[in-house]
């Protein structure tokens, strides 16, 4: 029988708009103020990877990065959303240049008295192996771009899952002013499959999803202070978290990547011969107890 009662509250899974299930363009629209999304270098500009077709891989017209201008509560903003469905959100020469170029544009914009908040959707496996050093060079430019910009305006990272954020882009995530994650997000240098392949099944079983998310999942990363905000996989919740992060004045709290002594102290309490499990690490690096 069809449900006709209007008063009956719809179940939460119908009310929620899953951010994970959105594509990059929809994600940008969900974050920016309604009607302000204006894409830069869109698919019809056809800035594709020149390297993928030479290696038998079909290129995408936007190279998997959607750059858009818009506003956040009326303030100037730019979003860079990586499309994780295309080549695992990997960063190549063109896609990397789009990210780095946006950061540079935002920096120039600040210099000209028009501060622009940047939101990065960091759903990425890291460097695109087919483009090797060109991708790595682009990632280095992205890092430099974030560091230059974050001194003046907030650079907000979002990892929604379920691909996660790895390799050089995990460093980009760590450089952000504020990092927003969901439970479904993953954050780490090497992906579980890579670790299993390189170090063997005894080191890490990449098929053990519970173990993987306990180690590098969004909740764990938030609990040990490597992410700043933990939200549900809900477009409105993520948009609200981004807005909250965007009003913090830059330089108020030192960026994690400048807190060298704090992180060295953290490493000192770990014995590599007896690696801690997820719960032990949470106790050691708890965001509540740590100064």
């Amino acid at each position, binding site marked *: 029988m069809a449900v006709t009662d209007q008063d009956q509250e719809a179940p939460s899974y119908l009310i929620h708009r899953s951010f994970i299930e959105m*594509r990059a363009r929809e994600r940008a629209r969900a974050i920016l103020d309604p009607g302000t999304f204006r894409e830069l270098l*869109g*698919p*019809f500009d056809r800035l594709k990877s020149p390297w993928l*077709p030479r290696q*038998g*891989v*079909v*290129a*995408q*017209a936007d190279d998997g990065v959607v750059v858009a201008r818009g506003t956040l509560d009326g303030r100037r903003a730019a979003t860079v959303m990586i*499309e994780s*469905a*295309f*080549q695992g959100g990997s960063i190549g020469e063109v896609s990397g240049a789009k990210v780095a170029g946006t950061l540079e544009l935002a920096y120039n914009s600040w210099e000209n008295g028009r501060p622009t908040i940047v939101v990065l959707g960091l759903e990425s496996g890291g460097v695109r192996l087919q483009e090797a050093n060109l991708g790595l060079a682009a990632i280095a430019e992205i890092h430099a771009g974030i560091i230059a910009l974050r001194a003046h305006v907030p650079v907000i990272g979002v990892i929604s899952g379920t691909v996660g954020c790895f390799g050089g882009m995990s460093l980009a995530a760590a450089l952000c002013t504020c990092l927003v994650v969901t439970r479904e997000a993953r954050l780490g240098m090497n992906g579980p499959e890579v670790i299993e392949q390189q170090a063997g099944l005894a080191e890490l079983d990449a098929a053990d999803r519970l173990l993987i998310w306990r180690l590098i999942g969004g909740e764990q990363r938030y609990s040990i202070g490597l992410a700043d905000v933990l939200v549900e996989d809900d477009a409105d919740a993520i948009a609200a978290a981004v807005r909250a992060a965007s009003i913090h004045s830059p330089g108020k709290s030192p960026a994690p990547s400048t807190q060298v002594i704090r992180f060295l102290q953290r490493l000192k309490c770990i014995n590599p011969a007896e690696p801690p499990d997820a719960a032990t690490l949470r106790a050691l690096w708890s965001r509540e107890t740590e100064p």
Partner: protein
Amino acid sequence: MELLNFSYPANNRIARRAHVGVVASGDLEILMEPSDGAHAHIVVNTNIDGFGSVWRNVLERFFLRFDAVARIEINDFGATPGAVMLRLQQAAEAAGRWQ
């Protein structure tokens, strides 16, 4: 990887350009743009070789009803014929009909 070209006589016009889909496993990306002349031109980039006749069948069926002058670029990553047809219809709907 294979590059396929198709051309169909057409009479109508589309209102605007349209972009749908992603080059993701089992999916494809379509870029549809208005053009001049009396034909629709389709370029297919696909990562799966040897299915030219299947592409021809799907496109012929689509152009039985679509009939619009347009430049269409398809970047395919192993979409099934059903998925291709749905994406083409989605693009046609987004492009609209020129009044």
